[in-house]
């Protein structure tokens, strides 16, 4: 597997400009001869599809949702970063770049991150022009707030529904292109495999989830904008449908999978309330701007929050990290919360959370101001827990949220399979070992609107349009494989439901490959995953048939892929014998319990090559160099 990142030459602030000039172009009259398939309709998918449609390419979008507007980008709450420096607090493209590289604990590719920071400016302009109703000040200009891991206010937001508003902007742009006839959207369609002809991606196999029909669609390029894989943990903040299938199928067809073990645990989620919990709900990190995190200083203290006097509360983040305090980065905040709960300081009926307290902010600013900022989040919290956060502190606990790992891509967002691209959370490129808050929307939109539509031209200009018919043997083979897998799942006829298996897998992953990891645990996880997988194929029960709307069958296919994928995640965590960002190996911590990086041996992206189910994948390395942000130990003290 060859890993050529194709990083442009010259000073980093010229990379993108130079690259745009150097890329080949497709002349306007020829653009309509090219077909592009986009899988997924979140920010990175819908943005790319709408923009490519606008440029004149024929675009087809497939999404498992019933409408493009439901992609999981919609659930992002807090905001989107951009180096606009509207607050005059010293922000700049370089500072956003610097913060992101440092926040990612020096495991991302500088050149990609710089481009991200650079186009962040255009994103806000674009969204405002589309009519995204960002929060504004009384003077009519855009408002900002600060977010974890940054000391400037660069986050733009639309109440607590920033992701929703940005996605609706994308979705509307997409629908406009549908109306214009440049884009076709196939909702309730799931991508089941990639069609590869002579090593080049030429299309996909999809399943119409309503009729069960399995068929191929071919094109001159395929873009995967299929999000992350946090649902490998079963309980996560992801929507129930989020899955790894598209990325995993691409991996099986030759696309390298980079840093799968870099998974982010979000510090502010509502703790589980019982055994039947089906997903976890995130409370936006923006709450940490005004909320103070604490636990009872005394172990096993069961008094109500109000009965614990100030002197017996431990505001542990403010204590450990005086300069960042409650705004410390996600990985650090999450780990500290786990430590507190593990050491008997947990709060709530199940003793499984920490307090996020707004009493000080309400006293200082008034309840009205807090309602204005977080009203919908507070309402959401009350609905779920039955507790009023204006009166009693919220209870929060970390939960799997975002996956920095993903398909390896070069500077053009192309995977190791030519013609196959990956954008947004589905790729690995920008966040290293940890993502800073309000950066996921930024990356989705950067990739979708500004990077993919340009880079795709450079690829298309080199290929002969429309050379693969849908009855090509490669299509037929892929279709047959998909069909066989569906039939096999239906034929098992076991006793145990798909969800039961998914829960079991999730528990193994959370226990051994979650917030903290060690070599023995990971080895044990690998063998447990194999066992669960073997059992799955002997005992899963999927009712109904493949020729109709069958939600159990959909789930069964996705869980089968998670079971193969989980193993490479553990191999990655095992082979990365250092701690960095969200990857916390208990063998590698400093005196103060912080992650200890090993730059000498691990300053690389680990890229895995598929060698067969149950076989150990092959490791390839993309070395990382840091010429613009000097390697340093992250400190938020």
């Amino acid at each position, binding site marked *: 597997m060859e890993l050529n990142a194709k990083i442009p030459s010259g000073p980093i602030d010229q990379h993108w400009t130079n690259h745009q000039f150097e890329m080949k172009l497709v002349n306007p009259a020829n653009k309509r001869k090219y077909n592009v398939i986009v899988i997924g309709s979140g920010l990175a998918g819908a943005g790319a599809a709408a923009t490519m449609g606008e440029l004149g390419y024929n675009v087809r979008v497939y999404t498992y949702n019933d409408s493009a*507007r*439901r992609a999981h980008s*919609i659930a992002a709450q807090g905001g989107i970063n951009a180096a606009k420096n509207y607050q005059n607090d010293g922000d700049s493209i370089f500072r956003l770049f610097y913060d992101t590289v440092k926040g990612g604990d020096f495991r991302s590719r500088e050149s990609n991150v710089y481009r991200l920071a650079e186009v962040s400016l255009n994103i806000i302009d674009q969204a*405002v022009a589309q009519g995204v109703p960002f929060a504004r000040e009384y003077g009519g200009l855009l408002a900002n707030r600060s977010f974890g891991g940054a000391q400037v206010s660069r986050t733009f937001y639309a109440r607590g*529904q920033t992701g929703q508003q940005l996605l609706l902007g994308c979705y509307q742009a997409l629908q406009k292109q549908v109306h214009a006839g440049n884009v076709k*959207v196939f909702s309730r369609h799931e991508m089941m495999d990639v069609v590869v002809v002579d090593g080049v991606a030429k299309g996909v196999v999809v399943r119409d989830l309503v009729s069960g029909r399995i068929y191929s669609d071919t094109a001159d390029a395929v873009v995967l904008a299929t999000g992350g894989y946090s649902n490998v943990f079963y309980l996560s903040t992801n929507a129930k449908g989020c899955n790894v299938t598209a990325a995993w199928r691409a991996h099986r067809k030759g696309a390298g999978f980079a840093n799968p073990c870099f998974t982010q645990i979000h510090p502010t989620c509502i703790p589980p309330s019982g055994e039947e919990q*089906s997903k976890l709900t995130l409370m936006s990190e923006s709450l940490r701007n005004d909320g103070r995190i604490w636990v009872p200083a005394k172990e096993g203290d069961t008094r109500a929050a109000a009965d614990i006097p100030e002197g017996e509360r431990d505001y542990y983040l403010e204590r450990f990290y005086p300069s960042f305090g409650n705004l410390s980065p996600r990985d650090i905040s999450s780990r500290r919360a786990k430590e507190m709960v593990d050491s008997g300081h947990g709060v709530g009926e199940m003793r499984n959370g920490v307090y996020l307290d707004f009493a000080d902010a309400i006293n200082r600013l008034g309840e009205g101001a807090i309602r204005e900022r977080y009203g919908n989040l507070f*309402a959401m919290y009350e609905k779920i827990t039955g507790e009023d956060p204006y009166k009693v502190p919220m209870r929060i606990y970390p939960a799997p949220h975002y996956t920095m790992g993903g398909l390896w891509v070069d500077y053009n967002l192309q995977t190791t399979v030519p013609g196959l691209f990956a954008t947004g959370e589905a790729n690995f490129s920008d966040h290293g070992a940890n993502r800073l808050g309000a950066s996921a929307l930024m990356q989705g939109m950067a990739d979708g609107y500004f990077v993919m539509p340009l880079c795709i031209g450079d690829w298309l200009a080199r290929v002969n349009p429309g050379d693969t018919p849908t009855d090509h043997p490669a299509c037929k083979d892929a279709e047959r494989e998909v069909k066989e897998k569906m039939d096999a799942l239906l034929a098992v006829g076991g006793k145990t439901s798909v969800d039961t298996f998914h829960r079991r897998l999730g528990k193994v992953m959370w226990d051994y490959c979650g917030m903290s990891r060690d070599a023995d645990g990971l080895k044990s996880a690998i063998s447990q995953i194999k066992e669960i997988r073997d059992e799955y194929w002997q005992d899963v029960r999927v009712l109904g048939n493949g020729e109709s709307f069958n939600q159990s069958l959909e789930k069964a296919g996705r869980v089968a892929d998670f079971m193969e994928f989980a193993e490479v995640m553990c191999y990655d965590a095992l082979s990365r014998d250092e701690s960095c960002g969200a990857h916390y190996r208990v063998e590698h911590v400093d005196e103060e319990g912080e992650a200890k990086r090993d730059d000498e041996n691990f300053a690389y992206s680990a890229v895995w090559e598929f060698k067969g189910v149950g076989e150990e994948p092959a490791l390839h390395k993309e070395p990382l160099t840091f010429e613009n942000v000097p390697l340093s130990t992250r400190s938020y003290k």
Partner: protein
Amino acid sequence: MDLTLHVWRQDGPNDKGRFETLPAKDISEHMSFLEMLDLVNEQLIDQGKEPIAFDHDCREGICGTCGLMINGVPHGPLSLTTACQIHMRHLEGATEIWVEPWRATAFPVIKDLVVDRSAMDRIIEAGGYVSVRTGAAQDANATPIKKIDADMAMDAAICIGCGACVAACPNASAMLFTSAKVGHLGFLPQGQPERYERVLNMVQVHDDEGFGNCTNHGACQNACPKGISVDFISRLNRDLVKATLTYKPYEITAV
């Protein structure tokens, strides 16, 4: 909690459909309504019966995928709440629960509680956007927008497109949905150039898709999980009247 569920089962758009009575025992009040359905489904699978099909995704009230009539009320008994945010404690005292899909001509049933809402996408397609090319935007702060206007736009823009308004309306009208988009863009300077063309086209498609007319019942506002006001329908009507009387497409006036 021990409950008796009456769940709508329908094999496909051409099947007549029927209620099926199912027991749901030992339900914890902390469970969400959909987790209760998950549990019932697990029991059905255990008995070798096909589970109930229902749409859901984010399970936190923002994606708009879920949509159920719970005891005849869209999204259940709590105001400003989607079905996925209902917890069993909100149904305390209930012993029988009737669960049905959205019922509207424009929303054909796919299976059980799952309906096809693609008609709403086509309403947006008809004009629910600002035509702006990627990369062609001016600086975001070049046009100040009054906070009150931005806030009003946001009040409309928070629509999640779930279809509860249609399910609640005796005419199965999607006018609240349509007016939310017309209102969102109509409050902003960016939405002005296409304002009147937009309302004409969106309302035309709304009618063509088989949604009924608005006759000011206001049931939509009560059912809306995001609290979108019927005032937006009034605003749409004003725009529509103005557009009908004055809008002249593509007419070039000689100076």
